Structures are given as C-alpha cells and as structure tokens.
C-alpha cells in the first residue's frame, strides 16, 4: 500500500514539500483509500487526454502560420510525431527517463513497458497506476519534437525530420528528463521545473534553434523584397492556440500528479491568468510598437504566458503568475522581432515561445518563489541548453551530411505538399461559388 519510490521518488518529494507548504496542517497521505486513488487516477487520465489534444493544437497552429502549399506536410509531420513518440516512448523512452535508482546522469530500466501486479494499485503510486504514469508521460514526450516541427517548417525533408524526431524524443529528451523528473543530479541539486518550462519547452526550443541554424531560412525570406511570408489561415492558427491553452490545463494541472483539490485548482488559476496576461502583454507591445495589433503575436503571447508559468505554476503566487505571464507576453514579441532581425527564420515563433519564455519561466521560479534558488535554476537552464542544443545540432548535422536535410529549391517553391506527398491541402479545381 505504500508508494513505490521507483519512478516517482522525486515527484513525491516535491509534492510533499509543496503539499506541506500549501496545506501546512494536512499530513501527507502515505497511503490512500481506494476512492482517493480512483479520483487521482481519473484526473490524471483526464490530464492525459488534454495533453493529447495539444498535438492537434500544434498541428493547427503550425499549418495556420505557414503557407497553404506546405499544409499537408505539416499535418503529416504532426500526425507522425505523436505516433512515433508514443511507440518509441513505450519501447525505450519511459525507462530511460525513469530508470529508478541510477547514477543521476543516464540510466535505463530495460525495453518495453509492463505494469506488473502492483502497477495497477496505489502501491505503485497514490496518484496513478503504472499505465497512467506511462501514458501521461508519453503524451508529454512527443511535444518536444512537435515544437521543433514548426520552426523548421516549409523546407525540411520529411524523412530527415522523422528520423530527427525519433532520436530526439527517444534518447535526448528522455535522458535530459531523467536528470530532474527521473530523480537525477539536477533534482538532487534542488532544481525546480514543475511541468516542464525547461524539460519540455526549452528542450524543444533548443532543438528548434539548432534546426533553424543548420537549415537556413526559407527561400526569399530575407531577399530584396521585405514582404514576409504570411501564414495561410489565421482561423486555423487561432484554433491551434485555444486547443493548446485547453491542453495546458492537463499539462500543468496533471503535473500535480494527483487530484489534490488545492493544488490542481491553484494551478488552473495561475495557468489561466498567466496565459491571459501573456495575451495582454503581447497586445500592448504589438499595438504600441507596430501600431497595428497583430493577431499572430497575440496568439504567441498566450503561449508565451503558458510556457512561462509552466515551471512554477504550483509555487508562484497568483499575483506573480499574472506578472510572469505579462512579462512573457512582452518578451515574446521582442524576441520574435529580434530573432527575425538575426535572420533566423522561425515561421511560427517556436524559438521565442518555447525556448526564450521557457528560460524566463524557469528563472522566474528562482525570482518569485522564496523556496528556490535563482542560481540553481540558472544551472538547470544552462545544463539543459548545452545538452539539447548540442544534441540537436549533432543530429541535424549528421542528417545534413548524410541523406540531406533540406528539400530542393524547386520543391520548396512548388510546396512540400506536392513535392513530398504528391497532394494538395486544398484539392480540386475549387469552384465553389
């Protein structure tokens, strides 16, 4: 009946810490009733399907902010990423990320997943079964690769991207994850990242940055004509952002790892207010700097607020969560402008949203939470940065040198939909009137 420390040592520790911090007079339940176990597990499964829907969010956002002639390619990539992510996470990822007792740097608990008889009882964990643990984590895993997808869109070869995804999600994301969520060295050091501003978003963002550098900009992006390459469907992009926001209730809310009423509801509030403040921050920036309020920036603002609060959604106060979101919304607009000026071509703003605001969010924990050290947070940011950026760079470079990373000029011009897939997103000689 006791919680197994196997996978969840680090998390239980944190839960204990903050559970206690927030509910000082409640003893931490070391074992739970059947009913409580069922509630916890049910909430974790709800969180799981919410995180799942984020993959649709990404698919919509990325295809909306790019050209119609590449929409099939992006939708294909996103469908592929979640599928490859789930399968590889079952084969190796879960056991690389949660190796149990290990040296704190790399460990591996073996191939495949298996609950065993205890895995479906609260003896495994008071908050969820083994299966729930796996599927919740698996939905997270693919997110990191999907973040890369948007940044390298409209020019990367499909097969190269899928190979990158497989390696990045199965190995780099999971090893990096083990350092903290698996109970590794950064966890020991006291680094804090509640739901993954760094572990998921920055890791994805560093991959995006590496990809953008190796690939170079899209044809004509920084040419003589200043005309930017406009996204083909703002409704699609907006659907994407709202679905991501929705999914974040599970991403952050599920990271409580139980249905604890106080914590989960607090996380809902900080998450929502940070997102709202992100919108307002981006709105103000965009309106004042560009004079015309840019919808795509405001959408990025919502995501910026969400990424920003992710590291500390349970330890940052409600008022500060608004501040974290507001700053994220302001930062993201500046960052998009700056990255564009640096001629790093990121069609959807993935680097600004996930990397820059991921860093901001992680550091914000050190700033706004008395229980966490800014320096430790910074060490975490740098460690993850070095590992994921170099890892991604290595994979991209190897692909570039071997099977090639970028489609031909002609294919890029014609669109990857016809080039890679032989089909069109909006097919038919469309005479609808």
């Amino acid at each position, binding site marked *: 009946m006791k919680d197994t420390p196997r996978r969840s040592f680090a998390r239980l520790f944190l839960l204990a810490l903050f559970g206690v911090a927030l509910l000082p007079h409640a003893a931490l339940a070391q074992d739970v009733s059947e009913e409580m176990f069922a509630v916890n597990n049910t909430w974790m499964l709800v969180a799981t399907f919410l995180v799942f829907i984020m993959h649709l969010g990404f698919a919509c956002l990325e295809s909306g902010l790019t050209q119609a002639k590449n929409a099939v390619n992006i939708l294909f990539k996103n469908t592929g990423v979640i599928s490859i992510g789930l399968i590889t996470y079952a084969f190796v990822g879960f056991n690389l990320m949660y190796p149990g007792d290990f040296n704190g740097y790399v460990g591996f608990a073996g191939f495949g997943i298996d609950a065993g008889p205890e895995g479906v009882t609260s003896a495994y964990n008071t908050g969820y079964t083994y299966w729930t643990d796996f599927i919740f984590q698996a939905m997270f895993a693919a997110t990191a690769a999907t973040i890369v997808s948007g940044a390298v869109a409209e020019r990367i070869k499909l097969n190269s991207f899928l190979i990158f995804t497989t390696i990045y999600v199965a190995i780099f994301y999971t090893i990096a994850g083990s350092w903290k969520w698996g109970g590794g060295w950064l966890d020991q050091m006291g680094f804090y990242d509640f739901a993954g501003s760094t572990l998921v978003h920055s890791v994805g963002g560093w991959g995006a940055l590496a990809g953008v550098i190796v690939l170079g900009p899209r044809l004509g992006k920084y040419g003589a004509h*200043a005309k930017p390459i406009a996204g083909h469907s703002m409704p699609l992009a907006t659907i994407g952002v709202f679905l991501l926001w929705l999914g974040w209730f599970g991403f952050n809310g599920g990271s409580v790892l139980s249905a604890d009423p106080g914590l989960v509801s607090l996380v809902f509030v900080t998450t929502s207010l940070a997102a709202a403040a992100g919108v307002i921050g981006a709105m103000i920036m965009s309106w004042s*700097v560009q*004079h*015309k309020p*840019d919808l795509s*920036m405001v959408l990025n603002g919502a995501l910026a607020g969400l990424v920003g609060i992710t590291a500390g959604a349970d330890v940052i106060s409600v008022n500060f969560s608004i501040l974290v979101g507001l700053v994220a919304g302001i930062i993201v607009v500046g960052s998009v402008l700056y990255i564009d000026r640096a001629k790093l071509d990121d069609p959807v703003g993935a680097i600004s949203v996930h990397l820059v605001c991921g860093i901001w969010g992680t550091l914000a924990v050190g700033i706004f939470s008395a229980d966490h050290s800014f320096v430790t947070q910074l060490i975490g940011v740098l460690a993850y940065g070095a590992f994921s950026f170099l890892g991604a760079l290595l994979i991209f470079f190897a692909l570039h040198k071997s099977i090639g990373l970028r489609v031909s000029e002609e294919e890029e011009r014609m669109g990857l939909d016809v080039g890679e897939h032989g089909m069109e997103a909006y097919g038919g000689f469309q005479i609808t009137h």
Partner: protein
Amino acid sequence: MKLITAIIKPHMLDGVRDALSKSGIKGLTVTEVKGFGRQKGHTEVYRGVEYSVDFVPKVKIEIVTDDEHVASAIASITESARTGEIGDGKIFVSDIGQAIRIRTGESDSAAL
C-alpha cells in the same frame, strides 16, 4: 464586334451588372483580379515586419458586343462604376473577329 474590358472596384459589381442589363447587354464574364495603379495598396504588418501590399482587389468584366452597343455599354459602366475616387478603374476596347455559341454553332452577332 468589340470586346469591352472593364476593371472596376469589387463592390460596384452588382450595380454595374444591373446597369449593363438595362442597357441591353445579355452576357458577360467576370474575373477576380488584382490591380496595380494610382490607387496605392496599404501597409500590412506580419509578425513585426511591415510591408506594402501594392495590389488592390479588383473585378474584371468582359463583354463582347456588337459595335453599335459599345458606346451605350461604356456609358453604363462609367456611370455605374464611378465613385469619384482614385481606383475606380479603366475600360479598354478591342476588336473581336469572330464569335461562336458552342451550344448551337451560331456565330457572330447571333452568338452573343
């Protein structure tokens, strides 16, 4: 026979078509086009980068008609398409040597 090509503002289309109908025109063909001319486009911003959109949405109307109807058709168009502001558009007239109705094989005036 002549081909009258008029490039007008999109929201004037219904009015122009009515005026042409009244002046006896029985057939015409319409295309969505973009125009570049004295009427400047506008500035757009996308993700922080400003750029000017030089092309303005226009509608092109093509009418093939007997020589005798040309003047009245032109008059109908100019009256009904005019707002008095820049960008109201142009009318061009050229010659058509032959016209055929596919359904019946009738030709020239009879085909219109």
